[in-house]
């Protein structure tokens, strides 16, 4: 009899969760309309920008990819939605209907998960429409290339990642909030201040790498499967913990200061990250310059690096290193496979067409230009990601290369080449091994004095 009662109670509980979830989903009608309108507007704006770019590049071959506007719109929307989870134990609009704290909590979770799922499907749909319009135009216009092929499996992979990422983020915020409901205002204030100070201290003393945390959360350098497992495990743990805390909350609970503390912590951590980025920019000796005028317009990919030296001797050593030893990756020793590195003076470079007439070097500087003649394969420009993420930097008179971390899984969930950016098991080093080196060239432009001294030194040897 007791067991039967328990079963009946569970059924009632489940039915109550379903009822509240349905009410909540019905209440969110305006949210769906707003979402559809915002995404439609973002995609329209993206297509408008494409047309502007296409018009400007008439006569040239234009390569276009889906822009960032729909992505940022989606990110903004998700951020707001996740922040809104702070009403999970105090949702006025559903608390007036019958239910217990746990049934309301679960109903809110279920309905919000469904909203996130709906949002992901909607975003995927808009991505597909956007992509198809571009491909249709590319099919009609011979000068237009779309950077990525449209792939249904890739679309679903992106949606799966996005959904799991949002679930994890949402459950993390819910856990923080439910925890806040169990502590008093003064305790939460003290905790927030301590957390901010501790995080800033750890960051400033380099005991904690915020990039590492960010990379972990966004799945950089992680295989897709591992990342999904990480997200789902995190989601599961956070949800179970927050549910257990919610079970301990007697009734409807409101903690309005929570949002303020979360925003303050976010601003503080964001600020210290910005300072960190600024500091690391100042530390690097070599600056990379990307001139949009030459990117993708003339079917040639370029990236420029400026190296500075103190005296001619140091400059000469740097040329020797590049010419004789090649450019090494500092940690792992892989060399950049250039088919050709030409050392030219400014005058020669200009004459050969390697340097623009209006380009001039300042004193004690040399220009290292990496050029990859664009090879496209099924409309995907195979060097683009490599060139884009390649960084050549200087430490003293030694020059090294590094590749920026592999693309952010969430931010590039859509619109980028899946194989190179997302399947991070596809190691850059393996990629470099198969690199057809004759396609990658480099030109080192130096001033005449340095050239003379370097040539003199070479002839003496």
């Amino acid at each position: 009899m007791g067991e039967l009662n328990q079963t009946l109670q569970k059924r009632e509980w489940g039915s109550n969760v379903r009822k509240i979830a349905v009410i909540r989903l019905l209440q969110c009608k305006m949210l769906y309309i707003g979402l559809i309108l915002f995404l439609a507007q973002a995609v329209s704006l993206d297509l408008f920008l494409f047309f502007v770019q296409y018009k400007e590049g008439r006569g040239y071959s234009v390569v276009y990819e889906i822009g960032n506007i729909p992505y940022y719109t989606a990110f903004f929307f998700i951020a707001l939605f996740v922040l809104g989870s702070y009403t999970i134990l105090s949702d006025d609009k559903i608390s007036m209907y019958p239910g217990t704290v746990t049934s309301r909590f679960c109903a809110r979770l279920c309905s919000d998960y469904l909203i996130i799922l709906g949002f992901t499907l909607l975003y995927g749909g808009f991505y597909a429409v956007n992509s198809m319009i571009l491909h249709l135009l590319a099919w009609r216009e011979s000068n237009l290339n779309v950077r990525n092929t449209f792939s249904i499996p890739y679309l679903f992979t992106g949606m799966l990642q996005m959904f799991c990422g949002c679930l994890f983020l949402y459950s993390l915020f819910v856990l923080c909030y439910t925890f806040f409901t169990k502590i008093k205002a003064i305790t939460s204030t003290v905790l927030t201040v301590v957390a901010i100070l501790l995080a800033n201290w750890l960051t400033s003393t380099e005991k904690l790498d915020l990039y590492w945390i960010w990379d972990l959360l966004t799945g950089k350098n992680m295989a897709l499967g591992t990342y999904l497992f990480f997200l789902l495990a995190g989601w599961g743990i956070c949800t179970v913990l927050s549910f257990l805390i919610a079970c301990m909350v007697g009734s409807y609970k409101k903690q309005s200061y929570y949002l303020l503390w979360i925003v303050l912590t976010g601003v503080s951590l964001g600020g210290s990250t910005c300072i960190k980025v600024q500091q690391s920019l100042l530390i690097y000796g070599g600056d990379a310059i990307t001139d949009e005028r030459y990117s993708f317009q003339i079917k040639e990919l370029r990236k420029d690096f400026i190296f500075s030296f103190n005296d001619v001797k140091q400059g000469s050593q740097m040329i020797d290193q590049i010419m004789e030893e090649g450019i090494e990756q500092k940690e792992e020793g892989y060399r950049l496979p250039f088919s050709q590195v030409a050392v030219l003076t400014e005058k020669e470079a200009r004459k050969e067409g390697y340097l623009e007439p209006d380009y001039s070097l300042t004193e004690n500087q040399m220009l290292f230009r990496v050029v990859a003649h664009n090879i496209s394969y099924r409309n995907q420009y195979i060097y683009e990601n490599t060139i884009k993420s390649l960084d050549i930097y200087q430490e003293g008179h030694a020059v090294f290369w590094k590749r920026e971390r592999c693309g952010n899984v969430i931010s590039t969930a859509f619109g980028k080449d899946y194989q190179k950016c997302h399947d991070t098991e596809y190691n850059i080093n393996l990629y470099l091994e198969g690199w057809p080196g004759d396609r990658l060239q480099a030109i080192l432009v130096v001033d005449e004095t340095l050239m003379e001294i370097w040539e003199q030194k070479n002839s003496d040897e």
Partner: protein
Amino acid sequence: MEEIAIQIDAVRKKYHKNTALDGITVQIHENRMIGLIGANGSGKTTLLKICAGLEEKTSGNVLVYGADVTKDIAVCEEVIYSMHDLPVGRQYKIGEILKFYDISYPHFDKVFCKRVLELFGISLKKSCRMLSQGQKSLVHFSCALATRCKVTLLDESFIGIDIEKRKKVYEILLRDFMEHPRTIVLSSHNLSEIEGILSEMLLIHEGKMVFYQEMDSVREMLFRADGNEEEIQRFTEGKETICVRSKEIGSYAVLKGSITGTAAKEAKACGLQVSAVSPEDVSIYLTTTEEGKELEHLWEN
């Protein structure tokens, strides 16, 4: 034997340092219409919200039909708390609100609710933000009544409704109560208007229960004796007096007992004019501590 609908046992509620409810213990039987009366800040809303499971109690116990309303879903669906300004969401149409009620309450009578709203001239297509305060109160009242919940808690539900409609509302409430007997707890400041439909009255003051009595007992609870100051003083000596007021024109005393009781008869015999004290005045006399001169200082130089 009548079942106990709500059992409140030594319930205390504290908001930081303020005590809203201070050990209230009461048993409310089913199928009664109870008036929850008290001054502003006496703890009426807190008590009703605790009974509905919307507010956490500091200590004590509340059982609705023997179950904890914060844990038992079946009981939860038989309890409705309604007030004049529920947070239903301003953007929804009344038709949508009815749909939400229909989903969540198993016995919700949508047809009845529509009829009541129609009677008051409120269109289902109207958005909540377009409603006046009185119309909002009417919508929430109609929905609450149509849920046919075994325990219906109406907290100041008639605010903003004009007198003509209020009278209709009381009529509907009474008739529906007779058609579908259930426990209805009404909290209102207009006791004189609703006393006719109440079967019992629960008076609370500063978080404590003053009494919980049947309306007939409340009407017989106190009587008033008017006369000159000397007669009043002589008569009240040694008697259970609630208050004595001395005025220039005439003095009066409020005493415990029925107008038909011995004390009242004695007063009459002493030449005093005896009158009944209405339930509304009972609540005032039993909860007011001032001597009637509390306003004088407002005009002092």
